[in-house]
């Protein structure tokens, strides 16, 4: 483990914890100050004034699930690109062109899915 490694990352944990604690304190303060009156009509889900439907979670068709698959592919590819972006100047033309081929394949993937009509809402 390189020196200073634990110091580097411990603050990444401290800051969110402190944030959560302060926000929790705010919630507690608000709980003591704020009024609380129960009312059947007030606690109904808001639907612009009309009485809500008798079921809780409505079914919604997620139309973009193919986009989500594409997103996973490209997101993983970003993880490969980050280390390359830092070292490609020092490591010779072989590595540079290999990564360009990789990007080219991905670019071809975008064009292919475009031609196949994936990037279109139906």
């Amino acid at each position, binding site marked *: 483990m390189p020196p200073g490694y634990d110091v580097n990352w411990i*603050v990444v944990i401290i800051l*969110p914890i402190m944030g959560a604690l302060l926000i929790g304190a*705010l919630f507690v303060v608000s709980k003591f*100050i*704020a009024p609380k009156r129960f009312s*059947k009509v007030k606690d109904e*889900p808001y639907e612009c004034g009309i009485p809500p439907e008798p079921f809780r979670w409505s079914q919604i068709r997620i139309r973009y699930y193919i986009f989500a698959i594409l997103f996973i592919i*490209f997101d993983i590819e970003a993880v490969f*690109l980050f280390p390359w972006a830092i070292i490609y100047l020092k490591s010779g033309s072989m590595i540079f062109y290999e990564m360009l081929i990789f990007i080219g394949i991905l670019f071809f993937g975008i064009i292919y899915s475009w031609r196949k009509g994936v990037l279109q*809402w139906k």
Partner: protein
Amino acid sequence: MSWQNLVFYVLGAVGLIIFLSLTVMVLTWIERKFLARIQQRMGPMRVGPHGLLQPIADVIKLISKEDILPSWADKPIYWIAPLAIFVPAIAIWVTIPFSETLVLQNLDLGLFYIAAISVLSVLGLVMAGWGSANKYSMLGGLRAVGQLISYEIPFIMAILGVAMLSQSLSLIDIINDQSKIANIIVQPIGFLIFLAAGLAELGRTPFDIHHAESEVVGGPFVEYSGAHWAIIQLAEYVNTFAIAALIAVMFLGGWSWPSMPFSGIPHHLLSVIWFLIKIYAVILLIFWIRGTYPRLRIDQLMSFGWKVLVPVSFINIVFTGFVRFYNLHWSILTVLSLITIGSIFYLIYKTPQQSRGENSIRIVPSKEAASRPPENYGDVNVR
């Protein structure tokens, strides 16, 4: 690690959170005033001179309001969702520097860390949407996910382009690397991509479809009130400030461009001020966009993300790679970027309206209305 370090970090974290909360109060006032001026209104005027105390009044009001729990809601998820939105928003700020020494912890993986953390707040939006058991909230949460999966790729690619230019992921290194020339001049295309993707990530106009007031009446936040709503709003403004700071760091050269002729303490003070001026300039740009542009539809937004921004960000990376690898002059990259931007605008302009989106609605005037002579309303002709 010693306990002094721990105390220092805890104090620094508390100080940072207090600073961000105060900044958010200032930002809400600026946004209301600025939007009001754009729309030829006065904005808040009653509380304090020019409404300066309005944010404080808002905070007191929001804390003393009732936190309503809808009777159908999924209780634990509903209560935790604001925290899940707020914690990633604050966690980004670990590594954003205000000057060379004024930073909580400069991480070597800074940009990668930011790209990873900033995504997490969408989880909170989905939790809020699900927990509320409201149809509008559910739609809003799912829209937020759709927005994220379209804009995360260009967001990361724009960051990657900057990392390739300065050969580092640490934010301080990136700023120091721009002391001669800022990245916005070298890589204007990356700036535009990052601005668009950042706005989409924030859910600000023109990409505010997940809480579009006129369609899903506030999206995931419909049911929230009181302190929980205040926290969601706080997180949103902290995120806005973070994106503006990132633009200032990555493209405007932070405090180091143009360089200042001082050294020692005056240099530090001036660099903080200079950096804050750049951040606020970007924030005013974001508010200006909010006051000017209409909202995109979700299918338009997704096709813009996937058909324009993703290919352009690939082109950006390839150009940057070639220019850096063969050690060409930076102005070549500028020219290539500008040519790309120009050709993209030309292609969008040339693409017929019909093929841009299949679901477009067109309002065709009836024959009777078309044949009527235009009525004269002063200088505007209305048919």
